[in-house]
């Protein structure tokens, strides 16, 4: 299998231009041999879901198009997406009613993808109200890929508690929740993400068949220990058991591949990113978004989340022309025109990174179309105006047509009080999750449907 040469069609700005390397790719090899034995028709490309979160809201006048439908003028903050407008659904009017109470930030970030009330606590009974959209989908489609889902970010979990508002800051660092009471750790180191997906350069993989016996032994020991713990401690301890089982599942995955699986047509893998955390934030974000595309292209996973930064991020955005200040500080623009101008440029920068990711996905052919055509990439924030912290009329964009089931190229303005979760329900259905309700949904957001 010749996976030594990078695909020529991919932008030279990506790390894909690096020298190709030979890596142990157990599942790619397994799939290729499986397919050679099979004579059936090529299966349809699977659908992918990514949810990208950026902090601190938007200046709405520069985000929401004035016209609805197909003929809308691209607002300032979305200009970097102008050439991609036919791949986008701009959604205004969606609300997260359960965030109207509680603190300005934490109660709006942790439930970005759950839509349910966030428990006010500095530690006891941490609860985001529900399972997040991505994790729900991962529970349904995750068994078909080596990793059920991939959770990425650029910053470590914010440490400490905010005793003034009575929330643990941890809430501002997690949008993926495996259950209402269990956030999923996110990975911020690009090299380690790469190695998790494809193994290390020396050909070794983090987990492999050599660990099978060890896992059996560890699990047995853990079960004995669990019996001796108190009830609350048992719940906590179950996280350990689940973590071990997840590794076990990953090992078994490679041993049980069927011939009818999707062939990702991976002709090459890029060189791994440099070790350590990138110094440059722009580089960091670019690498993380490209890793999602890479994971989707190689079918290493079909579900991913990414936090551009934790909420309340005070990152200095002076690297953007016309900006000289930090993100959270400027988001409290106090209706000062100069601050608004800077604030909206920061939002625009985020839209630009999103655009780059979409272009990359469009350049990757898959089935009858591109990788983007089979995906849904959600891009948004859990509050609207950063100065007011409103959870109404949220900034939400969905890119990609989810295999022809969404008609993109429109701005849909939903009536007041339409739950954001209606969109999530529609997205879950497109990922094959058969549920009647998600979060506080009152029905599907049928306006997105193709037709």
């Amino acid at each position, binding site marked *: 299998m010749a996976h030594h040469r990078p695909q020529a069609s991919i932008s030279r700005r990506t790390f894909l231009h690096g020298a190709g390397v030979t890596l142990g790719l157990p599942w790619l090899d397994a799939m290729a041999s499986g397919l050679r034995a099979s004579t059936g028709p090529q299966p349809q490309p699977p659908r992918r879901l990514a949810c990208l979160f950026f902090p601190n809201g938007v200046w709405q006048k520069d985000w929401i198009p004035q016209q609805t439908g197909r003929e809308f003028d691209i607002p300032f903050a979305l200009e970097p997406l102008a050439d991609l407008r036919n791949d986008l659904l701009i959604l205004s009017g969606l609300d997260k009613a359960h965030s109207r109470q509680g603190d300005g930030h934490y109660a709006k970030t942790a439930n970005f993808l759950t839509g349910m009330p966030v428990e006010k606590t500095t530690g006891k009974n941490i609860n985001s109200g529900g399972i997040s959209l991505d994790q729900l989908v991962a529970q349904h489609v995750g068994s078909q890929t080596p990793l059920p889902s991939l959770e990425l970010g650029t*910053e470590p*979990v914010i440490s400490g508690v905010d005793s003034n508002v009575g929330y643990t800051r941890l809430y501002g660092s997690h949008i993926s929740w495996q259950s209402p009471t269990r956030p999923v750790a996110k990975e911020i180191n690009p090299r380690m993400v790469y190695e998790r997906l494809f193994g290390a350069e020396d050909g070794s993989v983090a987990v492999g068949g050599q660990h099978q016996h*060890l896992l059996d032994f*560890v699990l047995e020991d853990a079960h004995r220990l669990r019996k001796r713990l108190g009830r609350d401690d048992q719940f906590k301890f179950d996280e350990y058991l689940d973590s071990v089982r997840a590794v076990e599942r990953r090992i078994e995955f490679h041993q049980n591949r069927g011939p009818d699986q999707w062939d990702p047509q991976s002709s090459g893998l890029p060189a791994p990113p440099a070790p350590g955390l990138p110094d440059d934030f722009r580089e960091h974000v670019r690498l993380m978004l490209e890793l999602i595309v890479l994971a989707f292209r190689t079918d290493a996973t079909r579900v991913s989340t990414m936090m551009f930064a934790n909420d309340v991020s005070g990152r200095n955005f*002076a690297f953007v022309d016309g900006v000289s200040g930090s993100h959270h500080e400027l988001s409290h623009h106090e209706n000062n025109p100069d601050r608004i101008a800077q604030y909206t440029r920061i939002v625009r920068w985020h839209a630009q990174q999103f655009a780059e990711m979409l272009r990359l996905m469009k350049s990757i052919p898959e089935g009858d179309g591109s990788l983007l055509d089979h995906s849904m990439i959600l891009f948004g924030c859990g509050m609207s105006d950063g100065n007011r912290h409103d959870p109404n009329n949220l900034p939400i964009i969905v890119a990609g047509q989810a295999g022809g089931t969404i008609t993109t190229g429109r701005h849909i303005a939903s009536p007041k009080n339409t739950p954001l979760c209606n969109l999530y329900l529609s997205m879950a259905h497109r990922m094959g999750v058969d549920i009647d309700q998600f979060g506080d949904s009152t029905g599907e957001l049928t306006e997105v449907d193709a037709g």
Partner: protein
Amino acid sequence: MLVVVVTGASVNADDAEAWRTRFSQEIQPMLAQKCLDCHSEDDASGEFDLTMYMRPDQLLETIDVWERIARRVRNGEMPPADSEALTDDERAAMLGWVDNAPRDESCRQLASDESQRWYRGHVMSRRLTRFEYNHAVRDLIGVDFGLANMLPSDGAGGEGFDTTGDSLFLSAIHFERYLAAADRVAGAVLSEDGNTQTPDLLMARQRLLAPGQDCESEEAAAEAIFVALASRAFRREVVADERERWMQWYRDARGRDEDHLAALRSLVTAVLVSPHFLFLVEVEPDEEGVRALTGHELATRMALLIWSSLPDQTLRERAEDGSLLDPSVARREVRRMLADPRSRALGERFAIQWLDLGSLGTGRRPDAERFPEFDPELAEAMRGEVIEFVVSMFRADASLLNLLDSNETYVNARLAEHYGLSGEFDDTFRQVSLDGLPRGGLTTMAAVLTNTSFPHRTSPVLRGGWLLERILGERVPPPPADVPALEEEGQALVSRSLRERLEQHRLRADCATCHDRIDPLGFGLENFDAIGRWRKDDGGVPIDASGRLPSGEVFDGPEELKQILLARRDQFVKHLTRQMLGYALGRPLNRFDQCVIDDTLKALQRQDYRASLLIEEIVVSYPFQHRFIKK
């Protein structure tokens, strides 16, 4: 071994009744007259509705709220200047009433039948934090592999620390990383060819294999090696049936054609990913109530508190023979542990989290154009100063008040240059005298000053808020959403100083309530720029570092500001104690814990605020030495 503590036959019931009566007769009427106009119901000022805490039968349960109120009154902040003041008698009555709350009642109720229903002192069995994990592997094997960065970062809960069980989660990625790390460690220490190992690893290998040296068979050697390793890793004795299961694991490995060395590697790997190693387990017996920790459990809590690591040989021996349960032995051990280099963890893990310096130089950082001097190396030097300073205080058993003001600090070459200190310096931190300089104590350290600034300028608001919260333990309500327009940048910036603009801000009554407390403290530090360098002017405008607090106290410059902080030393020490106790217990504190804080403060007052005493008092305290059994 179950010790159920019996309630001390409510000796204080009468006192409590008298205290409640005093509230109804003296305090309540006064509150109604002077406080409730503002602090009641929906439009309560500062979102503080006093009426919620005035039910006589619940006064004791909300004593922490009353303490906060008393603090504001004592500091002259309430009632505010534009309201009718309390008379001296009223003020004395209010403070006297709060100070005389019958504390002992709640302390002794700790394990009564009734309190068990709602006692929240449960310490959760939790996994090690990623730093504890790295330290534990380091002390177990003898080599620092720097494994912390292999694991995802941990959040925090409770009083704000990562040691809180409720906020430590495990995701799928964790076990992948534990496994990869264990493979790496076992492979490095027990590599095929010992001759190619570094001296460090070779020594670690010899230490690991030593227990099996004189054994008759490979299997007997494996068993000896395992028992020595596991009893340290699991922080307890390895029991017989457990030993047999692990030896079966070794034999199975041999059965899979692994040679002795490979099977030993499997054994080491398995120990490093075992839940007995990764989890802090305090097993619960069947009976309800409170039990004293076993010696090994106590040793583990102590080692995690002071070293963020495993107990060492000495501590294990004290645990084994039970002597550690004697408070005087425990105190001696605390002092020994503080003197040990591993106590650096108190600076790295406790102080950095307490002072909120973890994200220094990563998240919000100084603007690269405005402050080209600031780089990761300088950030590390700044953080290093705080760590060295705090750790040295514990090692030297100096006064905790040094944290507020000191004539000495610790710098390396980079920081000495930043501070403009002359002398010979290199990469290592060295104690320097600050005599005659305006610097000294935590509040004037570059790490603090930088982390409480915006990228382009200082922020008296952030600095004042930091002092109130982190040093004095006050609550600072968040700014309301939708703050009205404030003339800020542009033309105004040139013509008016930051102070003028913020003073304009405070003319509004709703802003003034909080900013009158916050801003003056921050202005006291205006002589330090956004990366902590001394300055006399800001863009040509001379610095005015004077301030007036709501209490009427005035000061000019950092030295006088520190005198005001020192006058509030007990408020500071109480807060520090609270933080340390929260870090030690790994859970949110409750009102029973107030007894420990009060006792600790008294002990510290008696003995010159000796730093080691803070740790000693916590280690011998009831909640640290006991486990509550929740059913």
